[in-house]
């Protein structure tokens, strides 16, 4: 007997990526040969190395997860749904380092030990950049460099989305966090189109980062501010605005490999800002703005910040802080006033139901004159947020309120439920 497993309700290998939030899956019998019953009992288990990812299962849309799941599957080919999620705390480090095995009980009195199918997948999670393995690190920088493609690649669109001209779309008003969440997701999906094993890591700017600021990763700042890379690091060919290289130097005698960003409020302090979004979004000043301005160089200002790939790791942490705050305060539902800062005076692009530039393609005032990058990148794993995301679509990124809203990413230290 043979079965087919579908992850994210897709048979394709490109969809075999899960996070902490449950992914809808299916199993069906494709070849019933050997089965003596009309309905067979199939046990799903996870097989993983000691360092690889681990997945857990549940049958319904609610309830607890378990390490295995036994399903009654008809042999006539009817699909049986179930859910898979990464086990919190056990993300993958390589693609396909987790295997789901399906073992069936083919005879009425037999043991469920006949392997009838298996599938490899990945628990793909956004991690602390400090904790990446050399393999994860190398894949990330290679994907970034390829996206940049010496200045001629798609990265130019992401650079052009974050300029002085477009800045009112995303800064100084309530949609600061939702917009940047969508921005990171778009970039991450483009990186995954190059290497699907890549997830955007975050830079904990309130901690020392001895692994991140190295020649093999995001570079070491020379005293004058030029960022240096090893001869094997593809970021040595980074080009933006027609100019190779990155300018970034820590200020005020700060040593980022041994010290947290000076003056940047800690994670605990950030989460304690308040349980209303209208107050919490003040984190745009500190830690966000403060993290930007601990440096001199590209990352210090809006108009040049996106020229430095570190910018995306900085914002990944900003987004993680928001995600953690949301989990802490149950702020995923746009219908709950405290989840967002709705005001009659919010500028266009900052109201919950507004679509966000540039993905909406709107280039008439008050939106900027061009919309680089086109629609939001699609994902083979999820349908959200769609090609033209609204502000509110960024809130329920895990699908906590509505499973369809799941955007397919999670942070290593932010649970699902």
């Amino acid at each position, binding site marked *: 007997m043979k079965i087919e497993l579908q992850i994210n309700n897709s048979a394709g290998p490109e969809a075999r990526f899960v996070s902490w939030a449950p992914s809808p899956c299916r199993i069906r019998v494709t070849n019933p040969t050997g089965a003596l019953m009309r309905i067979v009992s199939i046990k799903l288990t996870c097989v993983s190395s000691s360092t690889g990812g681990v997945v857990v299962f549940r049958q319904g849309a609610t309830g607890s997860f378990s390490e295995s799941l036994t399903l009654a599957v008809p042999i006539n080919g009817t699909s049986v749904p179930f859910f898979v999620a990464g086990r919190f705390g056990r993300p993958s480090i390589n693609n396909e380092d987790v295997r789901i095995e399906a073992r069936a009980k083919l005879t009425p009195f037999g043991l469920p030990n006949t392997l009838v199918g298996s599938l490899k997948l990945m628990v793909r999670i956004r991690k602390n950049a400090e904790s990446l393995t050399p393999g994860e690190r190398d894949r990330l920088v290679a994907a970034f460099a390829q996206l940049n493609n010496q200045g001629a690649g798609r990265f130019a669109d992401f650079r052009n989305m974050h300029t002085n001209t477009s800045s009112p779309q995303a800064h100084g008003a309530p949609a600061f966090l939702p917009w940047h969440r969508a921005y990171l997701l778009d970039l991450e999906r483009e990186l995954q189109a190059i290497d699907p094993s890549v997830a955007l890591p975050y830079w904990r700017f309130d901690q020392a980062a001895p692994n991140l600021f190295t020649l093999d990763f995001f570079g070491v700042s020379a005293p004058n501010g030029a960022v240096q890379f090893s001869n094997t690091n593809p970021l040595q060919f980074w080009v933006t605005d*027609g100019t190779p290289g990155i300018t970034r130097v820590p200020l005020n005698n700060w040593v980022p490999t041994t010290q947290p960003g000076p003056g940047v409020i800690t994670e605990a302090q950030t989460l304690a800002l308040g349980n209303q979004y209208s107050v919490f979004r003040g984190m745009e000043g500190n830690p966000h703005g403060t993290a930007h301005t601990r440096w001199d160089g590209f990352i210090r200002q809006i108009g040049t910040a996106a020229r430095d790939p570190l910018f995306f790791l900085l914002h990944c942490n900003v987004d993680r802080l928001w995600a953690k705050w949301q989990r802490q305060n149950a702020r995923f539902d746009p219908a709950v006033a405290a989840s967002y800062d709705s005001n009659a005076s919010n500028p266009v692009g900052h109201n919950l139901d507004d679509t966000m530039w540039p993905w909406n393609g709107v280039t008439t005032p008050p939106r900027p004159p061009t919309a680089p990058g086109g629609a939001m990148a699609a994902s083979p794993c999820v349908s959200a947020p769609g090609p033209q995301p609204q502000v509110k679509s960024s809130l329920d990124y895990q699908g906590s309120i509505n499973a369809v809203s799941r955007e397919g990413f999670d942070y290593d230290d932010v649970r699902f439920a």
Partner: protein
Amino acid sequence: MPDVVETEALSEEQFAELVDALGAQASGPAFVDGQQQLTLLLSEAHPHYNQRGAATVVRMRGWVLLSLARVGVTDDTLLYLLEELDTGVDPYLVAAAAKALRSYPKPNAALAPFVMRAINQIRYHNDPVSFESYGADALSSDATSPVRELLLTLAWLGPQARALLPELEALSGLPKKLQPEVERARQAIVDSEALDTGDCCSLPASLRSKFSWALGSRRDSQSIETTVFEDHDGATVTFKEFFQGQPSIVVFFYTRCDNPLKCSLTITKLARIQKLLDERGLADRIRTAAITYDPAFDLPHRIRGYGQNRAVRMDASHRMFRATEGLEALREHFKLGVNFIESLVNRHRLEVFILDDEGRIAASFERLHWDEQEVVDRAIEVLVERKVPDAVTSSEVAAGSTSQRRSISRTSSPVWSTLASLAVAFFPKCPICWAAYLSVLGIAGLNQIPYSPWLQPLLGVVMLINIVSVWLRGWSTGRMVGPYLVTAGLLAIIITRLSPSLNSLAVIGILMTLAGSLMSTLNADNQRRRASMKLEDSMPRVN
């Protein structure tokens, strides 16, 4: 006027002095000359700006604008001011243009949208600027700023800006220091009397950012036919190979342009133009091309990426180019509004060209934001102009020359065929008759011209060609009366040649030939006209 110094050698101080002198001249009796000289200095391609950095060009242009603000702005200068408000991102230039606008003789409602657009574009970059002296540094926000100048200009517009009152009242977030200017502008709009509805509401007729050249008046493209381009895939092609054979829409750009209202938007709009052409089934009949100002840096992979990132279609008929040689000739031919420091652009204007199927410039859109639909419409006009020579091409085509060409083409065909028939009918049968004819025709002195019997069969061939073409025309139009008459006329002429006694039949033959040829030609004209009306009905209305 100061002594003319080699323009490229002028220091910034000398340039400022020159501008001041022209300004003084324009304030005096030689107002027109001074004004014109100052306006000329606003052209990007002016030699003064050659080999200057972008920031230097900003200072220089700004000083010219400020000088014009002092002496008064005319219709000729207005376009440059509107251009700055429409697409400018430099605070100094936008502020200077706003100030200069206030010295235009009369406020005009058509100017108001430019002012408001500029406010929205510059408000988050509202850096202080100083007009005190050339290159003065604004070290205090008490100096002026572009938004302040624009608000003052709104106040100057007064009632002419009434349509923008809601937008003005909705403006929030501006510095508190500017609130008095906001209020002043609002009061000026609200408190004023009713609009003078004379010629207040449209831009001056002489202000032209769109140009057309009639079919007969276009400059040929010989000087650039051999210009070699390399496209986004590295394939090479000459100007002649790509731009002749079909009309085309051409834009100029460069990948290092940092004004999002110019090149990035231009190429984005080019993609929209391609989409419009595709929707009308014209993507294979009208080509598009984007040519970089910066061929040394904009290598194929770079321009391909730039185009791809803006959803530009790239294939055999739609390409992104760099000129591997002959950029100067291109610049001269297109009269490009651009200047350089080394190979890098220091400033350029918006410019789109429509070329006809011989690669000649048929139309251009310059300086101000252009509408994609309008560009496509104009390109379609150029496309159909040869198919329907009688169709009106644009309001700027010289009507006289077109109708002349029309009447000539209509009558020439039957006349030639009739003359040929006439000649065959009366061709002399012998040398003596030949001499007699020549003397009758008053060229007796030329009786040494030998009898040329070979002329007769030649004329016969001409007549045969005529009859064949008449029959072909008849079959295509379905109208056969013309061919029948011409055939009968031909037979009559042949009979007279064979039977001299029936010479009178020759006259009838000639008349029938003439009538038949005329009818045939008129039928064909009518059919072409009907066909072109059908074609035009299926396309957007042509201005």
